[in-house]
């Protein structure tokens, strides 16, 4: 198994891990982190595909087109995370809680 395949499998596992956390974790902060984990796994898969497409010409070890898409994706993911954190902090300010379930549900 090559290193590229190894990181590809790692990316696939991270997507699954992030998805699991997004569904089961209580509290908005932990879901935001899990969402970032999921995104990071997708970026790794992109990076693996870029690496496999590289080396076709001298000087590039990795296909620059997916690389540029990953950079764009990282910045957009940060912007989305900032907006999500702003919503969470406003929710904390208004209600003092970090979740939007009904009060009865949270006590399960």
């Amino acid at each position, binding site marked *: 198994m090559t290193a590229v395949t*190894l*990181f*590809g*499998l*790692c990316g*696939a*596992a991270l997507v*699954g*891990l*992030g*998805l699991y*956390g997004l*569904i*089961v*974790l*209580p509290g908005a*902060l*932990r879901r*935001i982190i*899990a969402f*970032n*984990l999921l995104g990071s796994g997708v*970026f*790794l898969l992109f*990076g693996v*595909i870029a*690496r496999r*497409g*590289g080396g076709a*010409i001298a000087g*590039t*070890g*990795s*296909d*620059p*087109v997916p*690389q*540029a*898409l*990953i*950079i*764009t994706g*990282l*910045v957009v*993911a*940060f912007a989305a*995370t*900032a*907006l999500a*954190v*702003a919503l*969470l902090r*406003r929710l*904390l300010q208004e209600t003092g*809680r*970090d*979740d939007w*379930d009904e009060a009865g549900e*949270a006590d*399960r």
Partner: protein
Amino acid sequence: MSAALIVDLGLALSILGLGVWTVAARSHNGAVVGYIAYGLLVALVWVRLAAVDVALTEAAIGSGLTGLLLLGVATRLPRSARQPSPTAGRWTRLLAGVLSATVAGGLAAVVLLLPDPAPTLAPSVAANLPATGLGNPVTGVLIAFRAIDTLLESVVLVFAIIGVWSLAPKDGWGERPGWLRPAPLGSALTLLAQLLPPIGILVGIHLFWTGANAPGGAFQGGAVLAAMWVLAMIAGLTRPPAVSRRRLRLVLVIGPALFLAVGVAGIWLAGDFLAYPVAYAKPLILVIEAALTLSIAAALGLLLAGPPEAPSAAERQP
């Protein structure tokens, strides 16, 4: 098994371990710190995948700025929320586990069955790169071949600012952003915020300038500049600007606006939207990148500074 593969295996296992930790950690702070460490290790993976431009972005934005953002909210969660008890029932967790394992398994199968030889756009990028006058193919893709992505992304940052600012409390509009509360002056942080920014600002400008020919560019440089600004704000050496200031808003939109203006001018000068006249491609790209760096630095810093708050509300916050 070669030495390099052993290192890669260790990296992959560390990343997976940290990923599990961010999901399973009992405390929110622990999960956030785990995520920051995770981001730094992923930056190393990008170097191993020969994507140094991505590694710089991941370390600066994916780990550094995101980490600061998450830490800022983790320390403000109410005590009752700090120790989460799993609210999802056993069946929910089982179903989620099956679903996640299926998705991960499917993706793993895709990774193992990728076509060989791999499809690639690298040769066409290399063939067309000389026309842009750039030496770094990633910058070439970002600013010329896929310029529409980069233009829209810089607009997304402005939209994110509008979204965050619109969450201002009732009496907060037009005031200064209230998330970054300065530490008392005279601490070690003050010294760091005095020593580091001169170097950091140079590094940021260097990353932008060298991005034309080597790994780096507007996003990496902008992120480092934003980090220096935020450091000065956290240390209390400078205050976040009031959001109603016209000059601040001008800095925020100058990058996307200039990019759009050059793109529209391209319809007449070069025959297509976002096309550059070949004779002026390099200077135009440098001007756009300089304006983008400035706007990105301002936008990233302001996203970390949060929505405007009335001064008294900032004091009342827990």
